[in-house]
C-alpha cells in the first residue's frame, strides 16, 4: 500500500527535536515501511536533508511557511492510497480536495474538536473528508463524538506506544545494574523512590504530591519523591510556579528531590532507579505517554482519572486510579500501600510490563494502524 504520513508544522521527522507526534510517526513508519511504501512529510530542518530515503522510508521535508500548500501539491501528485494526517483537522478538507482519490485517516492527539478550537461547520466538513478518525484514547474519541455524533462510526481508539527495548525493568540483569548505579549517583541508596516525570506545571499537579509528603513520611520516612520536569530553562529562569514547588519542597528536604534537566535518552535510567510511578494530572489529559514508559519499565502506576490516563490502568492489577485527583491524602494512601508491600509492587510492575509488551509496543501500534488503513482504503 502506498501510504503518506504527515507530521505537524511544528517539528521534523525523524524526531531529532523531540515531539510526541513525531516519535509516533517515526516509530510506526519504521515498522510499516517493512512491507508498505511509506512516505513521511514533515517540515524542513537544517540538520536534515530536504528529501531522502532512510530505512525504507521516503522523507520529504517542506517549508514551514508554506507547508499546507506544498503538502497539497505533493499529495495531488503522489497518488497515495492512504494519507495519515496527524492532529491537524483544519487541513483535512483542503488536502482531501487536492487528492480526492486518496483515503484520509486523521489521528487526533488532543482536544482539537472543541468549541474554542473549531466551529461546527468546519468540524463537519473535516469529518466528512476523513475515511477514518483515530484517537489516542477513548476520552479524546468522546470529545469528538459528543459534539459530532455522526462521526461515531468513523472514530476509534488506537493507543500510542513506547520503545520497549529502551526500558529495563529492575528484575532484569541490566535493569538491576542501572538501578544500582543510578541510586549511587543520586545518593539515594536505601530509599523508596516515587517518580514523577512531566512538565512542572499546575495542570500536572506536582504541588498536590508535595502536599501529600507529611502523610507519606509519617509511615515511610525513607520515601523519596523524585521530580523530573521535562523542560529546564536554566537556574535564573525558574518561573513562579516552579519556585513555589521548590519552596514547598524545601520544607521536606529528606523526602524531595528535584532534578533539573534530563536528556531524553537518559530518561529510562531514572525509571530503572525508581520503585513506583505517579502521575497527578489535574487536567483532562489525552493520555500521557509516561504511563507507557512506566509500564515498560515495570513500575506500578498511580494516576488520576483525568482524561484518558486511567484507560491503560487496570485497578489493582498494574496500578491505581485516583478519582479525587486534588486530594493529597488519596495519593498518600496509595503510595503508602505500595511502599509497604514489595510483593504487590513486583506483581503490579510485572503486570504493567506484560501489558506494555502486549499492547503498547510500536509493533502493535503499527499493526493497528495498518488495520485502520486497510479499512479506510476500502471506503468510497
Amino acid at each position, binding site marked *: 500500500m502506498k501510504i503518506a504520513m504527515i507530521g505537524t508544522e511544528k517539528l521534523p521527522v525523524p524526531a531529532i527535536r523531540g515531539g510526541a507526534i513525531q516519535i509516533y510517526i517515526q516509530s510506526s513508519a519504521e515498522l510499516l515501511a517493512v512491507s508498505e511504501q511509506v512516505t513521511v512529510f514533515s517540515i524542513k530542518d537544517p540538520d536534515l536533508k530536504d528529501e531522502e530515503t532512510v530505512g525504507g522510508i521516503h522523507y520529504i521535508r517542506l517549508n514551514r511557511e508554506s507547508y499546507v500548500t506544498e503538502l497539497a501539491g505533493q499529495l495531488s501528485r503522489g497518488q497515495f492510497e492512504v494519507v495519515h494526517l496527524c492532529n491537524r483537522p483544519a487541513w483535512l478538507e483542503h488536502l482531501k480536495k487536492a487528492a480526492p482519490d486518496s483515503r484520509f485517516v486523521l489521528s487526533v492527539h488532543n482536544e482539537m474538536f472543541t*468549541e474554542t478550537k473549531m466551529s461546527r461547520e468546519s468540524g463537519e466538513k473535516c469529518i466528512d473528508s476523513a475515511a477514518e478518525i483515530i484517537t489516542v484514547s477513548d476520552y479524546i474519541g468522546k470529545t469528538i463524538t459528543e459534539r459530532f455524533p455522526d462521526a461515531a462510526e468513523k472514530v476509534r481508539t488506537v493507543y500510542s506506544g513506547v520503545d520497549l527495548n529502551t526500558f529495563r525493568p529492575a528484575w532484569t540483569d541490566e535493569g538491576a545494574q542501572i538501578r544500582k548505579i543510578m541510586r549511587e549517583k543520586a545518593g539515594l541508596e536505601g530509599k523508596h523512590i516515587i517518580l514523577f516525570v512531566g512538565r512542572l506545571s499546575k495542570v500536572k499537579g506536582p504541588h498536590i504530591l508535595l502536599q501529600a509528603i507529611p502523610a507519606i513520611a509519617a509511615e515511610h520516612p525513607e520515601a523519596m519523591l523524585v521530580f523530573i520536569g521535562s523542560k529546564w530553562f536554566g537556574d535564573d529562569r525558574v518561573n513562579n510556579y516552579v519556585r*513555589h514547588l521548590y519552596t*514547598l519542597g524545601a520544607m521536606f528536604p529528606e523526602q524531595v528531590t528535584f532534578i533539573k534537566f534530563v536528556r531524553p535518552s537518559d530518561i529510562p535510567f531514572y525509571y530503572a532507579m525508581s520503585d513506583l510511578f505517579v502521575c497527578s494530572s489535574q*487536567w483532562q489529559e489525552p493520555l500521557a505517554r509516561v504511563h507507557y514508559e512506566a509500564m515498560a519499565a515495570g513500575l506500578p502506576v498511580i494516576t488520576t482519572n483525568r482524561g484518558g490516563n486511567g484507560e491503560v490502568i487496570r485497578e489493582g492489577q498494574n496500578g491505581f486510579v485516583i478519582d479525587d485527583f486534588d486530594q493529597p491524602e488519596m495519593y498518600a494512601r496509595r503510595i503508602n500501600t505500595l511502599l509497604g508491600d514489595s510483593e504487590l509492587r513486583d506483581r503490579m510492575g510485572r503486570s504493567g510490563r506484560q501489558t506494555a509488551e502486549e499492547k503498547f509496543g510500536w509493533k502493535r501500534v503499527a499493526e493497528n494502524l495498518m488495520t485502520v488503513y486497510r479499512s479506510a482504503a476500502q471506503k468510497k
Partner: protein
Amino acid sequence: MNRQEYSKSIEQNHRDVSHVLSHYAIRPESVRLISSRGGRSKWLIETGQRNFFLRQEQIRPSRMLFIAGAHWHLQQNGLPIARLIPTRNGGLCLAGGEFVYVLYEASEGVPVLYYDRDQLEEIMAFTGQFHQASKGYIPGEQSKKRTRTGKWQKLYRWKLQELEDHKKVALQDPDDAFSQLFLAHVDRMLERGYEALNELDTPELSEWTLETLRSGMFCQQDFTLARMTVKEEHMFLKDLHSVTIDLPARDLRILLNKVMRKLNVWDTELAIRMLRSYDQVHPLTPAQYRILWTDLKFPHLFCSMVHKYYLGQKQSWGDEKYLMNFRNVIAMEESKQPFLEQSETHILHLKEGTT
C-alpha cells in the same frame, strides 16, 4: 554608567527608534523614551501635528496581533480609544527580532480617580461600551488568542490549591506576623472559595461561555483606571494593554475589587450604582449577574496577596508594607459578606433601577 555614557546611550536609543518609525507614514520630529520595565518600553514621538506613543514589547508576534487586531476592531466600532496607527502597508504592528512594536496616538486628558463616584459610574458605562464594541471580533489567522472562558473552574481550583500549599509554608514559621494573620483567615477564605467553585457548576455558566465565544467579544486582560482618561468630558481609553476572551463579568469583578480595595471596605450602594450604569449600556441577565456574584465571592484579592508574599513578588516591600496591605485586603474581603449574601435582592434592585 556615568552621565555622559547615559546621554550617549539614550541618543543612540532614539536613533534606533527612528529606524523603527520609518515603517510608519509619519514624520517624527523628536523621540523620547518615557518608560521601560518588565519587557515593555514606551517612547513619545512628536511630530508637527500630533504626538504618538511607540510601544515595544517582548512578546510573540502572534500574541501582539491578537491584541492589536482587537484594538483596531474597537476603534472601528467607534469606541473612544487612542487610535492604533497602521504601518505604511496597513500592518497592525511591526515585528523585529524578539520585539514587536505598535504605534498609537498619544492622548491628553484628565486622570480618572478611584474616589470619584460619578466617574466610576461613567467608567462602568464605558466598560459596557467596550464589551459591546468588542463583539464581532474575528482574530486574524496568524494571531494567537488568549482565552479564559471555560477555564474558570481550573483557575479557581488552582488558586485554592495554592492557598492550601501556603498554609503549609505558613505553619512552618509561627513567629511571622503575616503568616499568623494568614492562618487566622485562610479557612474562612477557603470556604468561600470552595462554595464559589461549586456555584460554577451551573448550565448558565456554560451557556454564557458559549455565547461569549460565538460573539467574539473580549475583555481587558487586567482592567485598571490608569489607562483611562477623561477627554472632552468623556471617558477615553488611552492604551490597550492586553485583551483576553472571557466573560464580561471578568472586567466587572476586577474593577469592583480594585475600587473597593482602595476604599478598604465594600460599599454595597456604590457597587449597585456602578453595576446599574453598566447594565444600562450592556444589560446582563440575572443569571449572569449571579455568576458575577460568584466571582466576587471567590477570594481573588486574598489569594493574590498571599501569592505575592510567599513568592516574594514585591521586591521593594518590607514586612510592614505587606502586613498593612494584607490587613486592608482582609478588611475589604470580609466586609463583602452582606453584599454576597443578599445577591438576589441586589440583582433585582440593580435591574429595576432601585436601591
